[in-house]
Every structure is written in C-alpha cells, then in structure tokens.
C-alpha cells in the first residue's frame, strides 16, 4: 500500500520509511512562521532564551503584517519587542512592515518549498500547500517551545482526495470553487484530515491554488495541498528557489474519502453570515445592499485579484451608496499593479488604498464596521465580530464579485460584466 502526500512528508521528516494515519511522529519543521504575535511568543520565554538560546537562526520567519503600521502604543511596543528579539538572536528571516501579509511573503521569498514542513502561529499557514509544502497552524505556546527545541509532535492525518475536473467558467474563480467545496464539506468536514487536490489543475495559477489552500482551515483541514507541476516550477523559479524536492501521493495511496468536483458547473457564490460554510449562489441574493466592499488579504489581494477588479471598475465609479477598501497582499504584488495602471484604475474609481498587510480582515484597525453595517469581502472568514463589530455582517466572495458589488452598491453577478 502506498502513502499519501502528508504521510510521505511526515515519514521523511521523522526519518521513517512508512507512517500511517493516527501515528504520532516527532518532527523538526523546516521553518516556524510568526507575525506580530512573535512579541507574545518571545515574551513567554525570555528567561529561557537567555539560558538556552534560540535553537536555530534559520528556523523562525517573522513578518510584521497584522496591525501595520502600528495603530497605538501597545501594538507599537509589540513591534519594537519583535525587532529587538530579531537583532539580539540574529533571526535570519525577518520582514518588517513594508513587505505584506506573512503567508504571501513566505511563498514569494521561497521559504516554503515543495516537500517542506512548515508550522506557523497562524491558522492560514496551510496556504503553502499551494506550492506543495505541508504547512499547518499551531498556537503561540507551541511556537515558543519550538524556538527553544526546534522539534514537536504531529499526529499523521488521514487524507481526503478531491478531484477537480474541467475548467472554471468565465466570471467564476478559485474563490467560488473553494467556497463551494467548503459549503459541501462543511466547516468541520475535514477536521484532523489533510486535503489533496488532484485532477485538472494545470489551469489554476499559483495564486488560484493559494486561495484554495489558504481556505483549507475553514473546513478545519490540517493541510490542503497541490501537486508540484510546471506551474509551480515556473513560479518558484521566479522566487529564486532552485533545489526542489517535491513529494506527491503514490497511485495506490489509501484515502479517507474521495470526491469529484466539476469546475465547469461552478457559479459565483457568497458565504453568508456568520459561517464560512453558509454558501449561496450570488444569483439568489442579487440586490443585497452593502455598506463596505473589501478587496485584499492573504486569500485574495494579489495582482491577479486587483487586476480583475480593475477590469470591472476602470473608467467607472464606486457607487456612492458604498465604499471600497483595497489592501494588496504584498508589496511585490502591489508593484505589479502599480506598473500597469491597475492601482490607478482602482483609486480613480474611488477605491481607498491601504498598505500591504492584513488590513481590516481581523477587526483590529482599518475599516472596522459600525453596528448594523454589512461588508462584502475577498477574505476568508465571516465570523460574527470578525471585523471588529459583533453587530455587523460579513459576506465572503471572489474579488470580481466584490468589485461588481462596489460598482452597483448591491450584490451583483460578475458574469454580467465580464
């Protein structure tokens, strides 16, 4: 019997020939991701660090992205503490404010490579499955322990195989696909499992795959991963990654479940409050009014997302009954959008440009809603209170659906304008 992707990665990292689901293995991750929360993570072990030191300067990756630039004295003090830790212990992979959302930066900088194991103190660490890495989220305390020891335990998850067939129609995007899958699987349908995507994936860009892998945690999967192919190779080549050691499932691997999704049948959808798996076709809710439209985040704020929004909004104006907020995923994605006029088109249409970072997604600053307001967002979570106010509503959608909703001030179907 062969092994799945995650079984192979964990066997390799544990130095074993074979592992089976349920088995507990001790592993040393290739990297440990932290962001603004590094200040709290380091704060737990200051004396321990003095005594035992940082296990490996190459292990941590720190990207300041969640509340940037600092919004108040407390967040500023947190950033300062992170910078002091980086200097004192010689952390090699540090990205201060001015790079973008951590997950995008990790992939852009070639720090998550095919076949790697990356743990991160952020639930969307699973994004690196887009480039064939096994990556998953852990809590702050575990990140603290990893800084001291470099190793932890993992339970080998069983795997769900999802076979993607055909091609997404015009006006339907990878976000619609993954929201539809989550609607089908439900919010805990992949709990303690890894999800492997198979099938006709050659038409999905690394950005598309990022969007899909990123939302793996919204069905509670432990990882969501794509195979390594020419699309990945070309992208990673651009990121300067030369030596790759990709891994993929054996043909005779054993799966917990197998399911097929026909991409040609997909339609634009939204996730309605307050759960990501409350998925409904846009067509059923057309005309719903929105106070705010948000384009950005690690899920959907890359160049291709900004571009499709600009195609819809170029030469037009955002409806006076709503407002559009844009937070590009990273500086390099923003640069591409600056170079070809995408940003000019969005800003001239009335979009408000924020610095590359998490922006309003987590409700800590920038674009917080008032009670009774409603936002349509290209982000990944519509939990009650997520954007800072428990008496507001969040709908999740593709960047195209966000843009066309900004244009009309009410939910509209991007297939009608594209």
């Amino acid at each position, binding site marked *: 019997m062969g092994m799945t992707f995650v079984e192979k990665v964990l066997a390799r990292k544990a130095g074993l020939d074979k592992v089976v689901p349920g088995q507990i293995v001790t592993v040393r991750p290739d990297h440990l991701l932290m962001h603004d929360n590094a200040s*709290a993570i380091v704060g737990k072990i200051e004396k321990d660090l003095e005594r035992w030191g940082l296990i490996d300067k190459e292990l941590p990756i720190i990207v300041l992205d969640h509340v940037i630039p600092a919004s108040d004295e407390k967040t500023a003090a947190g950033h300062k503490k992170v910078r002091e830790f980086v200097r004192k212990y010689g952390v090699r992979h540090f990205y201060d404010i001015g790079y973008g959302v951590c997950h995008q930066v990790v992939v852009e900088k070639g720090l998550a490579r095919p076949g790697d194991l990356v743990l991160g*103190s952020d639930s969307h660490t699973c994004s690196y499955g887009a480039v064939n890495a096994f990556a998953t989220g852990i809590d702050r305390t575990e990140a603290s322990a990893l800084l001291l020891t470099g190793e932890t335990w993992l339970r080998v998850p069983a795997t769900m195989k999802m076979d993607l067939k055909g091609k997404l129609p015009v006006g339907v995007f990878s976000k619609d696909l993954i929201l539809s899958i989550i609607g089908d699987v439900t919010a805990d349908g992949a709990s*303690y499992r890894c999800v492997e995507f198979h099938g006709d994936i050659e038409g999905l860009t690394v950005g598309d795959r990022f969007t899909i892998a990123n939302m793996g945690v919204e069905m509670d999967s432990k990882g969501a991963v794509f195979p390594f192919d020419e699309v990945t190779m070309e992208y990673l080549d651009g990121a300067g990654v030369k030596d790759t050691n990709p891994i993929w499932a054996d043909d005779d691997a054993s799966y917990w479940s197998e399911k097929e999704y026909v991409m040609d049948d997909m339609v634009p959808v939204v996730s309605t409050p307050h759960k990501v798996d409350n998925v409904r076709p846009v067509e059923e809710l057309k005309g719903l009014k929105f106070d705010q439209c948000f384009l950005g985040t690690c899920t959907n704020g890359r160049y291709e997302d900004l571009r499709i929004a600009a195609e819809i909004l170029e030469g037009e104006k955002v409806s006076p009954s709503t407002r559009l907020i844009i937070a590009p995923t990273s500086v390099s994605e923003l640069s591409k959008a600056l170079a070809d006029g995408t940003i000019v088109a969005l800003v001239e249409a009335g979009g408000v440009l924020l610095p590359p970072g998490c922006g309003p997604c987590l409700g800590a600053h920038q674009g917080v809603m008032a009670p009774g307001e409603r936002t349509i967002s290209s982000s990944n979570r519509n939990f009650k*209170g997520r954007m800072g106010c428990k008496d507001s509503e969040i709908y999740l959608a593709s960047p195209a659906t966000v843009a066309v909703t900004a244009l009309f001030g009410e939910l509209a179907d991007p297939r009608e304008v594209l």
Partner: protein
Amino acid sequence: MKVWKYGDNVNTDMLFPGKYTYTCAKPDEIRPHLLEDLDPNFASGVHSGDLLVVGSNFGCGSSREQPVVGLKAVGIEAIVGKSFARIFFRAAINQGLLLVECPEAVDAYKEGDDLELDAKAGTIKVGGSTFTFPGLPLEILGIRDAGGLLEYTRKKLEKR
C-alpha cells in the same frame, strides 16, 4: 459547580475577539473579554471548577490561544464537547486544559443535570448515565500532565 452550555461551531472570534489579540496576552488581560461575543455573562459569572459543555467544531478559526489560556486561568475544569477544531485541541494540550470529546455525553446533558467527570478513569456521568471517552495518546499525555508544553519543555531541557 456550574455548567455553561454552548452549541456547534463556536469560533475563536466569539471566544476572544480579534481586536484584542495584539494587546491582551496575559490571563488578567484576557479574562474580562473571555467569550465576550458569545455570552456577555460568562466573564463575570464564571467560577473555578465550572465546566463547559459544547457542540461540534468548538474553537474553530484562528490559532488564537487566548481563549484556552483564559479558560484555564479562571479555573475551568474541562470542556466536554462533540468535537474540537484541530488548533484549539492542540492549544488545550499545550496549556494543560482537559478536553473531553464525547458526543453522547453532550447529547445526554440537559440543563440542571448533575455532571461528574473522572479524568483518570476516562468516564463522565450525566444524569443517570455513564459515558467513556478516549484518553490522550501516551506520547502527549506527558505534556498535559506537566501542566502544559512550556513546563514540559523546560523539564526536558533541564535533563539534557
């Protein structure tokens, strides 16, 4: 001892809103906001030794450990649930908080029922019925028994 009962898919934003995550990390900072958007009476009404009985996928969402840190700090003895989201499950082990995955016990529980938990035996009595729940694998039990991952890690480092 009071039992606090909640439903399915209670997420980390309901347990501890994101707006506090970069300003509150210590137990006394977390406590006033614990379960703020789920149950405004919880933070002021909870007592040491209380239990939570919850539905499926409890703690889904962010890798936010403050709810676990806070619940442990106010003295919650255990959370009895149908299922727990993966990162929350791991965070509970790392803080030494007992999670009891036992859907039958959750279904059986009605408000006012007596609830008796025997962690060592792996049994839970609800009203007149007794249910069993699986313990943690041996490899991991040591982390919880040490009182949490950092205590466990320090002991390990001392031995080196």
